[in-house]
């Protein structure tokens, strides 16, 4: 479980988050949505310790952010940032191999190699394992990063807008992979999404943020409503339903 208690945050004097308290249960995909500037990426970066926490407390799996060592946390929590640009010229298999670093600290054993192999096989990277990251498509690169997070073998995975710069095929395939990791491996995935429809289609829970506060939280069917669009997103798009899940008609 990820527990956020009384977290406030401001950047350069401008308040971004106001006294947020929210609990994200273990298991499943939780999507953070909200209009631009709502603070969803800030909240995620605080949980991910990418920004340092000033007010309030955050606990991941009982480990308090800021108290527990980075080394320890890296075995519980993996992060994928918005811009997963790596300046180093790496091959796909090397990148996936780095996922094991928190466990072996530079000296991989046979078990580490086995886990990397299974991650490469599972995410369909076998044919491009020797290719460099800058030689493959954006979708394939994101898949390699997810495979790396998978090899890291953490119970929690945080992703900040991973669908940016992906076409519809890449975005859907990435979301399906995450769905699979949540369903089959019991991972807890927290993901910041820009597009409500992806959240409604793939997430188990949605947390909607508005002006630094939690505006709504619950299953997609419950909270993706006309009111949410008007109050939080300030737009009057219509909502239809497909297989019991809401779809925003853009």
């Amino acid at each position, binding site marked *: 479980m990820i527990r956020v208690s009384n977290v406030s945050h401001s950047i350069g004097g401008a308040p971004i988050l106001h006294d947020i308290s929210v609990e994200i249960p273990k298991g499943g995909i939780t999507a953070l949505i909200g209009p631009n500037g709502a603070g969803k990426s800030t909240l995620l970066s605080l949980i*991910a*310790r990418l920004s340092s926490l000033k007010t309030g407390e955050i606990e991941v799996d009982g480990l308090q952010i800021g108290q527990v060592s980075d080394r320890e946390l890296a075995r519980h929590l993996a992060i*994928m940032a918005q811009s997963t*640009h*790596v*300046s180093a010229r790496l091959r796909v298999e090397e990148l996936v191999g780095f996922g094991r670093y*928190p466990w072996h600290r530079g000296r991989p054993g046979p078990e580490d190699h086995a886990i990397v192999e299974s991650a490469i096989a599972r995410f369909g990277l076998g044919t491009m394992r020797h290719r460099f990251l800058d030689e493959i498509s954006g979708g394939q690169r994101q898949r390699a990063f997810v495979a790396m997070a998978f090899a890291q073998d953490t119970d929690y995975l945080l992703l900040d807008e991973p669908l940016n710069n992906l076409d519809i095929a890449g975005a859907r395939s990435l979301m399906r992979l995450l769905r699979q990791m949540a369903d089959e491996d019991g991972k807890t995935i927290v993901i910041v999404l820009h597009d409500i429809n992806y959240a409604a289609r793939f997430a188990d829970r949605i947390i909607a943020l508005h002006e630094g506060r939690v505006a709504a939280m619950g299953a997609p069917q419950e909270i993706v409503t006309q009111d949410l669009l008007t109050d939080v997103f300030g737009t009057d798009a219509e909502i239809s339903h497909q297989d019991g899940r809401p779809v925003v008609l853009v």
Partner: protein
Amino acid sequence: MAELTGNTTAPRAKAGAEGARAARPPAMGRRLIWLAVAVALASAVYMVYGAKGAWGFILPFRGQKLAAMLLVASCLSVATILFQTITGNRILTPSLLGFDALYVMILALLVHLFGATGYIALPTGLLFALNTAMMSLLGLGLFVVLRRGARGEMMRLVLTGIIFGVFLRSATEFVQRLIDPAEFSVVTSVSYARFNTVDPVLLPLTAAVTLPVLWLAWRMRHRLDVLGLGDTVALSLGEPPRRGQSIVLVLICVLVAAATALVGPMAAFFGLIVSALAHTVTPTERHAILLPSAALTGCVVLVGGQTVLERVLALTTPIAVVIEALGGALFLALLLKRKRA
């Protein structure tokens, strides 16, 4: 270097286990051995080529210069790789941090104050101590810049270094105008790295400072791999980037400051050329390969270059001048070649 040979077998063994496959990464271990052979060859040629006179005099005399070159080349090459890793940029060099400029300014000031003869009469130990103290201060300043900065701190550090370097160079230019033209020639001749006048006491002292630092860099090789992945990925893998960058910056400062205090400023292009060559010879991001590869490449370039310059062409020009002159062109060529590849 003892770890070097022990390490070379690892990648080959791993590659063998995976079986032959197209486009597989090349075995780097063997290339490191070739580089070591090249260093040994260059050193041997430097020691014996064109020797006239008693061996009892020539060997210790040349041996000391050779040791200084190997030490300085290793320090600057490793420092460049470290700097490129923490900045995530392969066309940067630690000479941007302003150590060279500081050295030249201190030199110009001293010549202005004491005159050329006064400067030459200064004890080398005192000069070394002064230079080391000033460079430590500069290093401390850079460290504060890095720790204070909020976001984009590495870029801020680089820009601060560049601006500070420009400031120092203009100040130096001003001081140089005050110097007597005859004495000015002393400044120009000493403001490039020279290996002929290495002090027999300072050399072991510098080695005592830098060898442990080189060893620390080697110890950090796996952490450096992770730091090179960028801030977010490094943090996700449990390697907080700010802490790592700070430690590495300290290592860089010690290496560059000690090497510069010992022989004077090496050409800014030296590190760039060496890192580009090392990346060409051993195309990998693994610091277990890259650090020894860069150190060996640096030794080949410096000792080989000095041998050709001093023995074959019989020139007294400092090699730093030649590297500075040819380096720009060679570096551009390397950059363009990599773009096409």
